[in-house]
């Protein structure tokens, strides 16, 4: 079993189809009689819709229908719901303006959907859209986060004064202020967490289908959570009961958060299919992805850290402006609050933390969770301010961190910002990452680089994140409008093979492999005898889906619970057949054995007996072997670790080259190390992208400047060095597997490591901070300004 069990680097089951072109992504699916939708979008950031004349488009060749927001609203279609309600510090609920699938009355960002044209071919739909006469009266727009909160800023909604969605706080301000008053030193920093576009390589794609004879709808969707979409779209938007709505999330080409949310186009194709009695397909063009996939990050922050004379952290205070975009996306409000400010203690014993967050609406694409979601923003500001403090106090950055770590014997540890960390060992990962990158030898490398005329810098980042979202009672008290458990069904077939139906959804994570390892290991059956089924509401009973690195910690634990039920029932059956008392029957290595004897039955034999119950305790047990479990976690899980980056900067061009990167992560027990390392690699690349390359830019008028791969700089293979990854395990104490989650650590830990390295490289010139992304232009300018200041 060792070669496929827990801890083995098993090659992935799913790869065979992906490598031979047999993957089945939504756009690969075609339904009989299928029509194609083209969505006409606003090309201006803010305008009143005076009129929409669709007559010429309706008459165009191949066109079957054209619908506007008025058509959908008139038919009783509701707006897109928000799944999390945040309350302001004065107790008022957040402002939650309507978000119709097709704009009604006003358009509020470039890309806001205005009308849908449905035709026999996509080309016909697209051409006909040109014939729609859209009369817009342009309004002043605001895209910038700071500008939106300034007095006199253009206002998006009449009912949202000052564009303020909420004004939220966490922490005891009086206690915090008192701690600052005692500080020997206060480090201060203003920083921006740049807006990003998630850019899963598969563009979003949806097919709505309708069977009029049964009144049944099917939605094929590139989603991370089919059941959540069924609930949101069925119950809130279209009014279709669950038994008449099937949602299928087939192979999905990456998500990173952007495919969690219920999007307008899902409702549009499903509703249109019902209107027309024919399937309707919509596939985003990449330029549409840029202006309609939920964006990530976009915070403007001021942070202060108070230290005593020995460099011990006394207090931290943070104020953040968070950009929500033009409407509230599904989980947007919780990202800059409960997924962000609750992590502001980081790995440190800071006794008091206070954070105020103001969320604002702007004329931009809605912002929501993107890989890491809130935790990269928290980690970035913590690790930058710690480096500023290290620089100002003259304490080595590694030493300053070590001095303030929560010690490994202090767990469970109550932070000042609500969370209780369960376990960790931060020294271990710090030591490992420093050793991997040869921290001791750095100054020699810096000197060598200087001889070549290069500035070399090293940067450390430690991080902690809360994953495995989440205890339902906790998130419920914080405003979540759903529970966040997971469901699993383990169906043992008569001859002992097993199908597992999981509510988790794989869009690159390799669940078909990892989960099968778990099941084959537990049941003692061959890896090949296990099939993992996901992504179809008609097959899987329920599920909350995959995000926040929750699949193994929550979904995997649900599978364990269901497997335990299977084993308990099978043990009873085996005891009866083996004529032993139940207490005497033990299960190990796939055998039910009467203790101390050689009387045993294999897992498969018991399964057969359960389905062919000739010698079976029918008075006590039902035939069959098929169990279901729902698992609601007791706490979040807390992956943590340390990333160290080394960069070289060319002073003449400002080009930053990442030359060395080491990650040491504690993600709990590792089921498949190959997959875990791959998750870290991918996350690191996205984090390096944020630090050095990526930025979603709007101009002052609200036009999206970075609307394609020509303008938005994605990380490419030659932007990255090989990444050293190691894992160091402390077992999560409150789930059966001891697992924590590995999907987001890379994107959380890496940006501050890279930025600390960039600043370190330039610190001899007097540079104190560089904003992300550290583009050549920005770095060149920083060097020039610093040299100018030195000369003046």
């Amino acid at each position: 079993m060792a070669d496929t069990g827990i801890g083995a680097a098993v090659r992935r089951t799913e790869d065979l189809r992906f490598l031979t072109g047999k993957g089945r992504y939504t756009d690969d699916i075609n339904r009989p009689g299928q029509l194609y939708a083209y969505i006409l979008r606003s090309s201006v950031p803010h305008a009143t819709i005076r009129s929409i004349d669709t007559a010429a488009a309706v008459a165009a060749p191949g066109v079957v229908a054209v619908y506007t927001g008025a058509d959908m609203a008139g038919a009783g279609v509701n707006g897109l719901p928000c799944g999390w309600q945040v309350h302001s510090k004065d107790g008022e609920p957040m402002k939650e303006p309507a978000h119709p699938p097709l704009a009604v009355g006003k358009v509020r960002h470039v890309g806001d959907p205005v009308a849908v044209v449905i035709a026999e071919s996509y080309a016909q739909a697209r051409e006909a859209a040109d014939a729609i006469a859209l009369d817009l009266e342009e309004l002043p727009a605001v895209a910038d986060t700071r500008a939106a909160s300034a007095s006199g800023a253009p206002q998006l909604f009449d009912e949202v004064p000052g564009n303020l969605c909420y004004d939220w706080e966490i922490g005891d301000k009086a206690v915090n202020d008192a701690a600052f008053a005692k500080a020997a030193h206060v480090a201060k920093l203003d920083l921006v967490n740049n807006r990003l576009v998630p850019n899963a390589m598969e563009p979003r794609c949806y097919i709505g289908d309708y069977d009029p004879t049964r009144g049944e709808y099917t939605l094929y969707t590139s989603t991370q959570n089919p059941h959540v979409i069924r609930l949101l779209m069925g119950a809130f938007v279209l009014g279709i009961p669950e038994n008449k709505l099937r949602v299928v999330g087939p192979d999905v080409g990456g998500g990173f958060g952007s495919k969690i949310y219920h999007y307008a186009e899902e409702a549009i194709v499903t509703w249109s299919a019902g209107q027309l009695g024919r399937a309707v397909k919509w596939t985003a063009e990449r330029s549409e992805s840029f202006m309609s996939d939920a964006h990530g990050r976009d915070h403007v922050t001021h942070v202060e850290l108070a230290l005593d004379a020995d460099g011990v952290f006394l207090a931290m205070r943070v104020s953040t402006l968070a950009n929500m975009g033009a409407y509230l996306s599904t989980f947007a409000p919780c990202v800059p609050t409960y997924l962000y400010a609750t992590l502001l203690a980081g790995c440190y014993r800071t006794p008091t933390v206070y954070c105020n967050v103001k969320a604002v609406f702007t004329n931009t694409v809605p912002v929501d969770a993107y890989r890491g979601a809130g935790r990269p923003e928290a980690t970035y500001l913590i690790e930058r301010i710690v480096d500023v403090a290290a620089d100002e106090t003259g304490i080595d950055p590694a030493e300053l961190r070590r001095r303030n770590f929560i010690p490994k014997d202090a767990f469970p540890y109550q932070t000042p910002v609500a969370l209780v960390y369960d376990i960790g060992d931060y020294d271990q990962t710090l030591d490992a990452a420093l050793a991997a990158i040869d921290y001791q030898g750095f100054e020699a490398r810096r000197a060598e680089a200087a001889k070549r005329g290069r500035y070399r810098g090293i940067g450390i980042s430690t991080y902690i994140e809360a994953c495995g979202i989440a205890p339902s009672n906790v998130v419920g008290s914080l405003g979540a409008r759903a529970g966040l458990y997971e469901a699993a069904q383990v169906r043992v077939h008569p001859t002992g093979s097993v199908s597992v139906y999981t509510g988790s959804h794989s869009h690159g994570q390799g669940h078909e492999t990892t989960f099968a390892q778990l099941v084959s290991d537990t049941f003692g059956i061959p890896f090949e005898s296990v099939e993992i089924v996901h992504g179809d509401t008609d097959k899987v009973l329920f599920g909350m889906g995959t995000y926040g690195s929750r699949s193994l910690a929550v979904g995997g634990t649900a599978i364990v619970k269901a497997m335990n039920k299977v084993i308990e029932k099978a043990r009873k059956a085996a005891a009866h057949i083996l004529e032993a008392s139940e207490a005497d029957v033990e299960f190990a290595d796939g055998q039910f054995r009467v203790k101390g004897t050689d009387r045993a039955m294999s897992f498969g034999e018991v399964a057969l007996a359960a389905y062919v119950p000739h010698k079976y305790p029918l008075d006590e047990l039902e035939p069959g072997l098929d169990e279901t479990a729902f698992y609601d976690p007791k706490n979040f899980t807390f992956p943590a670790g340390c990333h160290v980056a080394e960069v070289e900067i060319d002073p003449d061009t400002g080009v930053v080259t990442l030359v060395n990167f080491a990650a040491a992560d504690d993600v709990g027990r590792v089921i498949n190390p190959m997959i875990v390392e791959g998750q870290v690699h991918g996350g690191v690349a996205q984090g390096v992208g944020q630090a050095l390359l990526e930025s979603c830019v709007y101009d002052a008028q609200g036009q999206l400047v970075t609307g394609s791969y020509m303008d938005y700089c994605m990380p490419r293979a030659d932007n990255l060095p090989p990444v050293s990854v190691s894992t160091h395990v402390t077992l999560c104490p409150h789930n059966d597997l001891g697992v924590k989650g590995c999907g987001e650590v890379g994107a959380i830990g890496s940006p501050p490591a890279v930025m600390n390295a960039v600043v370190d490289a330039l610190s001899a010139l007097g540079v104190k901070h560089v904003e992300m992304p550290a583009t050549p232009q920005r770095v060149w300018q920083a060097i020039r300004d610093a040299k100018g200041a030195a000369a003046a």
Partner: protein
Amino acid sequence: MSVRVTMTLNGKEVSAEVEDRTLLVSMLREKLGMTGTHVGCDTSQCGACVVHVDGRSVKSCTVLAAQCDGASVTTIEGLAKGNTLHPMQEAFRDNHGLQCGFCTPGMVMSALDLVARNPDPSEHEIREWLEGNLCRCTGYHNIVKSIKAGAQAMRGGK
């Protein structure tokens, strides 16, 4: 205006009536049902659509189907021999060179063209060659490793 395009696709002659503006990728995916070749962008940058036309890697979103009349086209579906994967496919599997799989067909086809030109590419050469292929999942680390291993296997080494 529609035109008839005839080509050798993965060793078999195929023919289809397409509009003259039809891109090769659309013909493959929509007319011929070969959905292994993907579309990830509209600016010829992501490389999800890479196929071979007469032995050279080509972004099939950037070439007209009509230009390929009479050509020999190979897609990801044409690499494996029955159930035996091509060594480059096998190397991607062994080295976890894919996660969601969406960029993978283009990566593999692009890698094969690199190895045809340079049977023993260095890590640096691989990274530079992949300039035109985006992957959002893997961070490229394991793709580079896969291509190195695939090239070695194709040279007959182990």
